[in-house]
């Protein structure tokens, strides 16, 4: 069996073990672990676009909100009819998986709709357009009364368990890893290194960018669904520009296109505000200074241990 598949199986087994012993773990640690898992999914999926493919998306929170809203709507509005009064644990799990997939697919569709027009653009323009789409998605949710308008959705059933979070985190890492290391996926790196050269050898850069965008949006949607069923309440304001920036900082801190670094950065940046409560107020200042200092002194990211591939020149 190939190594990544084995690693996935081991990770799923570990997730099952943790879930089985979750009653023995302090609920606070369990909550932190859940947040870490969700942030890992977000950071790793964004890394596919911002790292491996070399584009710059600032709208990841927008896709997350699509997933969060759609999956929450499924479990709020369809759940009672499908599951009845006292559902079995298995039926509930299967239903939640379905809700998550609906959220993920809706986010992927949003990624496709956003990606097809905007991915013909590059660099600065793409960043602005993804930012703009993130804002549009937020404004649209604010104006849909069926989804709670500006107040958001409340009373989402608490379906998110540590098993689902860890399993999907493992699945995200596995999918992105295998995609990038496949024959097809080498194209992502080619587009990252030099779009013109990639087109010259017969790759279609726009197509690669869209695929990266859609896959990334799908997992962002899953993360959104997990987040919604974990927090039990979601508002459009919770998925704003700041949230997108937080994910971008994780990717940059870990080193764009460097999977272990990005996972580590997601873990560290989730733990940091928990451990250092007094500095929580300064969080955004620290993030912004990190961005500036890292770009000037260490653009390859903090956690890239080996001398990695050089970033493309101007």
């Amino acid at each position, binding site marked *: 069996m190939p190594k990544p598949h084995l690693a996935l199986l081991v990770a799923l087994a570990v997730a099952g073990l943790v879930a089985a012993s979750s009653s023995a773990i302090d609920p606070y640690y369990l909550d932190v672990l859940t947040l870490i898992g969700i942030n890992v999914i977000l950071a790793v999926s964004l890394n596919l676009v911002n790292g491996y493919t070399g584009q710059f998306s600032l709208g990841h929170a927008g896709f997350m909100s699509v997933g969060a809203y759609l999956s929450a709507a499924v479990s709020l509005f369809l759940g009672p009819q499908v599951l009845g009064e006292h559902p079995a644990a298995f039926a509930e799990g299967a239903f939640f998986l379905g809700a998550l997939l609906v959220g993920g697919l809706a986010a992927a569709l949003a990624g496709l709709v956003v990606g097809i027009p905007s991915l013909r653009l590059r660099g*600065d*323009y793409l960043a*602005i357009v993804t930012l703009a789409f993130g804002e549009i998605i937020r404004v649209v949710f604010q104006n849909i009364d069926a989804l709670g308008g500006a107040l958001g959705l409340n009373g989402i059933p608490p379906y998110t368990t540590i098993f689902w979070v860890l399993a999907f985190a493992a699945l995200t890492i596995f999918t992105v890893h295998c995609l990038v290391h496949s024959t097809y996926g080498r194209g992502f790196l080619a587009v990252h290194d030099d779009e013109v050269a990639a087109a010259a050898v017969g790759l279609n850069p726009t197509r690669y960018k869209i695929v990266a965008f859609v896959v990334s949006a799908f997992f962002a949607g899953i993360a959104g669904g997990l987040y919604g069923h974990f927090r039990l309440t979601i508002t459009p304001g919770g998925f704003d520009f700041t949230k997108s920036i937080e994910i971008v900082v994780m990717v940059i801190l870990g080193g764009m296109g460097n999977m272990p670094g990005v996972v580590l950065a997601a873990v560290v940046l989730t733990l940091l505000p928990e451990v250092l409560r007094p500095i929580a107020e300064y969080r955004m200042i620290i993030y912004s*200074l990190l961005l500036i200092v890292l770009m000037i002194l260490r653009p390859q990211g903090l956690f890239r241990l080996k001398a990695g591939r050089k970033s493309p020149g101007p």
Partner: protein
Amino acid sequence: MAEFLQQTVNGLSLGAIYALIALGYTMVYGVLRFINFAHADVFMAGAFLGYFLARLVPAESFGGGLAVMAGTMVGCALLGILIERLAYRPLRRGPTLNVLITAIGVSLFLEYAGQLGFGAEPRTFPALFPQRDFNLGGLSISSNQLLVIGVAVALLVALQAIVHRTRIGTAMRALSLNPVAAQLMGINTDVVISFTFGLGSALAGAGGILYAMNYPSIDPLMGVMPGLKAFVAAVLGGIGNIRGAALGGLILGLAETFVAGSPWSTYKDAIVFGILIVILLFRPAGLLGKPAVEKV
């Protein structure tokens, strides 16, 4: 009809402010080829600088107002030059993506440092200039609106003169045509780039004061939305093109005001971004820009 004219006047005064901010984006893009995200926060800094300077001069006096405006423009120019010196110059030869990320970092830093320093609660901006309302047959125009349009036009004319009639303006245009050749012709690019940042930031500072005069509630995040919209205005007119930025600002100000007065008013922010997307898809070079050809 009266309402249409009223909305047009409101739209023009809003558009004039967008145009002032858009000029900063366009000029920096012209010489450095990157989007200075922090520009919107220089605009915010301008409003706050005006707020504090206004305490030093008599309220509602013409001379005092102009002194505050001049002081703010100088202060913002210095801030812009400082930002370029500290954050952007070390990356001058780096990949564009790194500069973009740094710009976002600078922008966030200014916003949240502002929240820490000034508090997140909105403050009321004082009345700088004597105010009067003029009534023209159902049409109500405030002196502030006239002032905004007047100051914006004056600054635009001055800018046009600087860029086209002075030595440093010629150097700016040379740099935007071809940086390497400009350097070979003996142009000190560092000085010209600093000057460009200073000029753009001074305009943003003036825009900040004018905006705060018409919407007298200022907070550290006030720059985000006007900044984004001014950026859209710059792209709409053709980024790197000074007249285009002015035109784009006016169009956007009018569009926003008319949508805000229609039944779809809650969508007014979304529509601005919709314009951006449509422009980028069908005419990426903007209304007045020339399409760029990429050389391999």
